C-alpha cells in the first residue's frame, strides 16, 4: 500500500499517472454488504450466544474476500446486551498491478473488533409475539492487521487500522410464524496515517417466514425459516491526504435469500448475498458479484448477570 502512495506522489509524468490510474482501477473494492447488526430480539439476562459466520464474496478484478466473523452476545440484564464482534482469518485477494505487471495478491490476517451495546427501550409482548425497539452504540477497535502485505491497498487489508463509531436504531416484530426486522444506522471512522475510511448510512430489513413445523401446539424441538433480507449501505469515499480515493464509497443494495434452521441450543443459517444496485464514487470501483454467508450459533446460559 505504501508503495502505491509513494508512486502516486511521485507520478509527475504521464506514464506515472497512467500507472497510478491503472493501480486505482485494479485496487478499488466495492462497498461491502453487511449483515452484522443483531436485531432487537430478546436476550435473557445471563444468556450467552456465540455465533461464527464464515463469509465469501467475489467481485470483478479477481477481488475475493473470505473471512470468519465471530460474535459473542451477552445478556447483562433483561434489557441490556453487550455484543463483541471480531473478524478472524480474513483473506482478501485481487488481481493487482504491482512490480510492473498484474498479479494476484493476497492479504491474510486478523480483522478488527467491534463492541456494541444494545438497550431495549420499548417492548410490547403478547402470546407468541413481541415488538421491540432497541438503539445500538458501538465502537470499532483496531485490533487487527492493517499492513500484512505492502502491495495490497488499505481497503483490502484484513483490518482497517482505524478507530470507528457506529450508532443504530433497530426494531423487531416477531410472531410464531414470521419475524420482521429493520435497522437504520450510521458508521464513521477516525483518520490515521493520513487515511480515513469512508463512513455512512446502513439500512437493513429482514423477513423470516416459518416453513416447518406447521404444528406448534407442543414442545417444538426445531424450526426452519425461509429468510429474505435487504442490506443497503451508502458510504462516503475513503480519503487520503485530504483527497477522495476514487472508486471507493458509493452505494450497494443486496437482496439476500436464505434458509435458517433453529434449535433451542444451536442453529445454522445459509444466506446468499446478491447485489441489485451498486455504484461507486469516481472511477475504478470493482463490481460486487455475489457473496455466500454461513452462520452457526450456539446458546449458553450463565447465572451471572446484573
Amino acid at each position: 500500500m505504501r508503495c502505491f502512495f509513494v508512486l502516486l506522489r511521485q507520478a509527475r509524468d504521464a506514464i506515472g499517472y497512467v500507472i497510478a490510474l491503472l493501480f486505482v482501477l485494479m485496487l478499488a473494492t466495492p462497498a461491502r454488504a453487511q449483515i452484522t447488526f443483531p436485531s432487537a430480539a430478546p436476550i435473557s439476562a445471563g444468556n450467552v450466544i456465540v455465533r461464527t459466520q464464515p463469509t465469501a464474496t467475489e467481485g470483478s478484478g479477481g477481488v475475493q474476500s473470505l473471512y470468519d466473523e465471530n460474535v459473542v452476545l451477552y445478556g447483562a440484564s433483561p434489557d441490556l446486551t453487550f455484543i463483541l464482534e471480531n473478524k478472524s482469518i480474513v483473506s482478501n485477494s485481487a488481481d493487482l498491478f504491482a512490480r510492473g505487471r498484474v498479479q494476484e495478491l493476497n492479504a491474510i490476517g486478523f480483522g478488527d473488533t467491534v463492541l456494541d451495546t444494545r438497550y431495549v427501550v420499548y417492548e410490547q409482548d403478547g402470546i407468541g409475539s413481541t415488538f421491540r425497539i432497541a438503539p445500538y452504540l458501538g465502537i470499532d477497535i483496531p485490533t487487527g492487521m492493517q499492513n500484512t502485505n505492502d502491495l495490497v491497498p488499505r481497503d483490502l487489508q484484513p483490518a482497517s487500522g482505524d478507530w470507528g463509531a457506529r450508532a443504530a436504531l433497530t426494531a423487531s416484530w416477531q410472531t410464531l410464524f414470521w419475524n420482521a426486522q429493520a435497522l437504520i444506522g450510521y458508521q464513521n471512522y477516525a483518520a490515521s496515517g493520513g487515511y480515513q475510511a469512508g463512513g455512512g448510512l446502513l439500512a437493513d430489513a429482514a423477513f423470516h417466514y416459518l416453513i416447518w413445523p406447521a404444528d406448534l401446539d407442543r414442545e417444538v424441538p426445531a424450526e426452519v425459516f425461509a429468510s429474505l433480507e435487504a442490506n443497503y449501505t451508502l458510504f462516503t469515499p475513503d480519503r487520503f491526504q485530504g483527497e477522495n480515493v476514487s472508486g471507493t464509497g458509493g452505494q450497494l443494495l443486496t437482496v439476500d435469500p436464505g434458509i435458517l434452521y433453529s434449535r433451542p441450543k444451536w442453529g445454522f443459517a445459509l444466506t446468499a448475498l446478491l447485489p441489485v444496485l451498486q455504484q461507486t464514487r469516481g472511477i475504478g470501483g470493482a463490481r460486487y458479484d455475489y457473496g455466500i454467508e454461513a452462520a452457526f450459533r450456539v446458546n449458553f446460559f450463565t447465572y451471572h448477570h446484573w
Partner: protein
Amino acid sequence: MRKRRLAGWLGLALALLACGQPVRAADQAAAKPALPPGYGEVQVTVLGVTAPFFVFGIVARLGQVPGVAHVSFNLLHGIADVTVKPGANITDDDLRHAVRNASYTAGPIKWLAHPSPAAMPAATKQ
C-alpha cells in the same frame, strides 16, 4: 453461472419445503405422565416467546428458581409448565421475577398442584 447458482438455492428451498409436512397433534407424545407424589405443578403464561431459540432462555431462567424440578414450554399457547419438587416454597413473585430476567412478560400464573400441602391445602391458587 449466476442463474445456475440461483436455481440451486431454489432447489434447496423447495426440498426443505417438501420435507416440512405438518406434524399432527396425534403424532405427539402420549398423554402427560402423572405427577409423582409430593411434586407440584404450575403453569406460567409467558408473553413474548416466539421460537425454540427463545424458549432456551425462559426454560433456563425458570429452571434456576430453587425448587423447580423440570420446565417445558408450549409455544402456541405461551405456557411454561413447571414441575416443582416436594416441599419447595415457590411464590408467584419468584416465577414473575424469573420471567422478567429472561426478558419476557409474565401473564397469569395457575397452580395445578402445590408441593406443600401444609402451606396450601386447597391445591389451587391464582
